[in-house]
């Protein structure tokens, strides 16, 4: 049964969960990806393995954390190890199926910027940088981008490529020696994929209560738009209940 009452963030978390298949290994950062992966594990993907870059596997937190450095999110983990173990011997080794990524900006080819805004050679504002994001973008079999739907976040070209998507499109990514690449972009208004040839972002579905015009009006570039655009599958009542009652009861990740 589909839910009537849900927020755009909750829909994003549910759409993220739907990207995960049972038995897969997912590299996850804090925020909506945590909600998406825990939701998947409690529903259709009980054999999902969730890993955090700093060396944590399959935790079962009972309190919400402020970030990966918060021991709240390590609670009841099955493994506590290191970057070399997680990002090296699992991710770089080629075993991570899905990585979730976010950022300050993305572009028509799914490149992500978490480093700086402005002119990299002149005046700029520095933010967070890569952490494990570049590693995940380079070596995961596929990545899913979760990002707010704002024109300033959807740029024709990002001002700094922290985590490569398809670079300038076509086979540029393969030529750079990278694996995988982004397969989905989930926003609070729509879901996108990428054209298999040009690698340009392509609209896949528009969320309920949103219009195509609204989606396009809040982007800094025009994505490929198919003739018929379906409506995004809404969350189920049970998915919303799990998010609100069990996964993020304090509403810290999902507002």
């Amino acid at each position: 049964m589909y839910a009537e009452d849900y927020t755009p963030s909750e829909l994003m978390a549910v759409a993220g969960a739907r990207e995960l298949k049972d038995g897969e290994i997912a590299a996850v950062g804090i925020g909506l990806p945590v909600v998406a992966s825990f939701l998947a594990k409690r529903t259709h993907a009980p054999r999902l393995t969730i890993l955090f870059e700093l060396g944590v596997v399959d935790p079962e937190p009972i309190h919400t954390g402020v970030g990966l450095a918060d021991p709240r999110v390590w609670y009841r983990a099955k493994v506590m190890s290191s970057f070399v173990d997680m990002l090296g011997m699992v991710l770089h080794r080629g075993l991570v199926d899905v990585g979730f990524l976010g950022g300050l900006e993305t572009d028509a080819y799914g490149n992500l910027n978490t480093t700086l805004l402005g002119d990299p050679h002149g005046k700029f504002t520095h933010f967070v940088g890569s952490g494990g994001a570049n590693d995940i973008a380079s070596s995961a079999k596929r990545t899913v981008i979760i990002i707010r739907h704002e024109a300033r976040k959807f740029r024709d070209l990002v001002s700094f490529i922290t985590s490569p998507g398809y670079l300038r499109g076509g086979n540029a990514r393969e030529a750079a020696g990278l694996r995988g690449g982004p397969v989905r972009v989930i926003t609070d208004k729509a879901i996108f994929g990428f054209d298999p040839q040009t690698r340009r972002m392509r609209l896949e579905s528009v969320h309920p209560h949103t219009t195509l015009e609204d989606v396009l009006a809040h982007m800094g570039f025009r994505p490929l738009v198919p003739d018929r655009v379906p409506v995004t599958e809404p969350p189920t009542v049970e998915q919303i209940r799990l998010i609100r009652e069990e996964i993020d009861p304090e509403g810290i990740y999902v507002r």
Partner: protein
Amino acid sequence: MSKLATLAEAVASIPSGAHVALSGFAITRCNMAFAREVIRQGIRGLTISQCVGGMDADLLVGAGAVERMIYGGGSLDRFGRLNNVNRAIESGTIIAEEYSSLSVAFRYLAGALGLPFIPIRSLRGSDILARLQQIAPENVSTVRDPFTGEEWLALRPLVPDVAVVQVQVADEEGNAWIYGPRWDNEEQVKASQRVIVITEQLVPTEIIRRDPERTIIPGFKVSHVVHLPFSAHPTSVYRVYDYDAEHIKEYAAATRTVEGFQAYLEKYVFGVQDHWEYLERVGGMRHLTTLLADPILGY
């Protein structure tokens, strides 16, 4: 052999201009008491490195102790960004060699193994690499796989002069245990020329011998052991104490401006004689005991 030392003695062993690997990650197990003492002693021109920049790095950079920072990005998690580090990068007052977490970890790993270089898939195609090729071309190059002919990005090993590591348990020789995830600490320790261990708890070597498989830092690499409770405050030490959220918020707010950070330094670094006075300044035992970890939860 006992390597027990005071914090002041351990810090005094580090010359200006040294390369120091820091054990912190954002707001956990950061070398906070160490950083405060480095600043009080006026040590300058440091190169600091860590996979994910933390509050220890931000304090040192803000105080002008750092010339070069080798890191993979960083923040104070939800409490904010590394305002001092960001300001220093934007104004060009430090040289920031910015990588990804794994590329810094691989550089330590290569150093730890004594390898001449390490190939990696990360960074390729990114502007992180483009920037590194400009500011640190000596550390990034390419290499041809002798077996397949494939071209790889190669990184130069990192061999810090000293790794400074906050741990939960150590003996007086420096054999040390780290509880919880270790992020880059083991590779840092093993890549470095020597190690300063700062421990919350000091135990007899007999305790170490009973569970030697827990020993992440072998005593033979350690030059100084500093036994100093709450030495990572206001950041957390898993299974010992939680982060001090109110203090980190105060720090994040103070570091929004240079003036605010100077006032913070006056109050919590220059305005106290040592770590013990600092602990009084932040609220003393009455406050610190509220941060002690629940033994089941670990925070």
